[in-house]
């Protein structure tokens, strides 16, 4: 008996009972659609976290002041002032694995342009900051080391600040804005960077030379953060070690003292965040996989009912020349057809629900080919696995008894 005939026979048998075939398929459809949609959500969130992190500069190193013990009381990191320009210079000079360093002193306040005003944050940095953050200028020019030395009152505006202070599409370049009553000339506009992975609007920022911010706004010699860039992503661990030893020497810490600063790399953040989203993907896939197994059990159940109900049909087929293997193949192919048709519908449904989730809930989703191929293979395997036993039962029926079955 050839395969084409078998396919015809199985197909016709399924068509005779469309509703039941569909209901049996439903379990598989839901299972596959769930797997595809869930994996798409998991992959999508992982992908968006990773692309955000790499847009922030994946070899970026952040140095923060750390808690310190003062008279027995531990002070929080932000209240401690330990990082100075000498630290920055020492890192720049001594650390071989570091390609760029920039201090950052920030202050929040009100930016004013004529009658318009907007609450934002000013970041006092050095020119290399833009390279470290992988941030490009959309228009204008960056400030120079000369501007830093002169504490020039120049600034670069983030997109959010531009939209709020120059709402009519006026070109901000060359205009004077005021930040906490200090006038700054706008010399450049930054590219939009979007939200950070923590939901913070990165474009809501003004960037100015650190000297200007330190002297004219903060009146402080300390920095909130130092940003550095490792020569490559793989060198970030070596760079971290170098920075730690340089800063310990700078701060004259004895070997028994704790660090009064923290060095963080993006690699830690990347692995922490992606392990979270990996866990999410595994959990979602496991749940979806369970529903696929339940779909498979549904197939087995229905195939059993079908074999019992069609005992006479089996007897007839045997009496007109079907061999045991023909009957086995017929029922197996029916089961596989149900599971594969269900799989195809499930894939379509899964992809479209992933798209709908992106459209209506604006969650990032990524339908991966591997999840489609995998769930498809699992489907076919489900059909074979759960279809085999009932099919074997059918093929072993005695035609004489099967024909007389009531």
């Amino acid at each position, binding site marked *: *008996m050839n395969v084409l*005939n078998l396919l015809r026979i199985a197909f*016709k048998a399924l068509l005779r009972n469309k509703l039941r075939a569909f209901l049996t398929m439903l379990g598989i459809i839901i299972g596959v659609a769930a797997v595809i949609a869930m994996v798409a959500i998991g992959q999508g969130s992982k992908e968006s976290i990773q692309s955000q992190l790499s847009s922030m500069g994946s070899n970026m190193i952040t140095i923060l002041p750390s808690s310190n013990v003062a008279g027995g009381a531990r002070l929080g990191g932000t209240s401690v002032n330990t990082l100075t320009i000498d630290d920055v210079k020492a890192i720049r000079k001594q650390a071989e694995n570091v390609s760029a360093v920039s201090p950052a002193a920030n202050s929040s306040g009100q930016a004013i342009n004529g009658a318009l005003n907007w609450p934002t944050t000013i970041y006092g940095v050095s020119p290399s900051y833009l390279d470290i953050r992988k941030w490009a200028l959309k228009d204008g020019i960056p400030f120079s080391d000369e501007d830093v030395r002169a504490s020039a009152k120049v600034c670069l505006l983030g997109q959010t600040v531009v939209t709020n202070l120059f709402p009519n599409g006026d070109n901000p370049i060359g205009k004077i804005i005021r930040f906490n009553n200090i006038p700054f000339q706008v010399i450049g506009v930054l590219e939009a960077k979007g939200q950070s992975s923590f939901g913070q609007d990165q474009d809501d920022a003004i960037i100015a030379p650190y000297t200007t911010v330190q002297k004219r706004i903060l009146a402080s010699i300390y920095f909130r953060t130092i940003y550095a860039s490792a020569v490559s992503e793989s060198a970030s661990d070596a760079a971290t070690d170098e920075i730690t030893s340089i800063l310990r020497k700078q701060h004259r810490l004895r070997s028994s003292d704790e660090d009064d600063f923290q060095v963080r790399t993006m690699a830690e953040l990347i692995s922490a965040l992606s392990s979270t989203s990996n866990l999410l993907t595994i959990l979602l896939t496991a749940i979806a996989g369970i529903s696929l197994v339940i779909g498979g059990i549904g197939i087995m159940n229905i195939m059993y009912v079908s074999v019992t109900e069609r005992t006479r*049909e089996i007897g007839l087929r045997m009496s007109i*020349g079907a*061999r045991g293997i023909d009957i086995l193949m017929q029922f197996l192919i029916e089961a596989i057809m149900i599971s594969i048709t269900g799989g195809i519908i499930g894939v379509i449904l899964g992809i479209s629900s992933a798209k709908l989730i992106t459209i209506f809930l604006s969650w990032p989703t990524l339908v991966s080919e591997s999840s489609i191929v995998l769930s498809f293979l699992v489907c076919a395997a489900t059909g074979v696995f759960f279809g085999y036993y009932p099919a074997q039962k059918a093929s072993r029926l005695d035609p004489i008894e099967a024909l007389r079955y009531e």
Partner: protein
Amino acid sequence: MDKKILEIQQIKREFRMGTEIVRALKGVSFDVFAGEFVTIMGSSGSGKTTLLNILGCLDKPTEGNYLLDGVNIGQLSRNELARLRNRKIGFVFQAYNLLPRTSALENVELPLFYNMEISHEDRRKKAIHALEAVKLAERMDHTPSQLSGGQQQRVAIARALVNEPVMILADEATGNLDTRTSYEIMALMQELNREQGKTIVFVTHEPDIAAFSSRTVMLRDGKVVKDTKNENVRSAKEALAALPVSDDY
């Protein structure tokens, strides 16, 4: 005389029921020649169903030989028996056994699906031809539920004819039908037997039906008690004509 289609030599069949051994057939012998229309008669318990199963290659004798068209089935495997049923036997059952929700044409095509040597086009052609032979060609798209009992049985006969078997094996084929329809079926059987030379073995317990055949084998308690040629075969067509035209009331 003609070629022997069936050779049945001292067939015995025993069943084990727990510790007891039931002997359903106790040594049955007879031959059937090509072109014969044989009825096998017997009351229930006579072993007629057991014999039918053996004749239909669904079962094998415990002892003795059964040769179908020269092939001894005693040595054949399950798969070889299936092949033999597919090529040499056309079954007609009491309960028609048509596939529900499937057109008459597809029902008739069914045996050819299990014959790899027949192409898609041939299958269709042969099925239409078989339906023409039972005068149901114009209803080939009807499903069994749209057909009367007599029509369903004619579809089943077409299914039995489609693989051009050496023998049609009917099991109480008129058992579910009223007198008029039974006679119609018997008229069709006679026509197939006379005009196309089909060999027919018809198992029944109704003497009325046996009168239409050319020979009757009578079984009782697992043995042949009578094997007679029917000298004046009753014509089913005439019997049909003799029935009251309408018994509506």
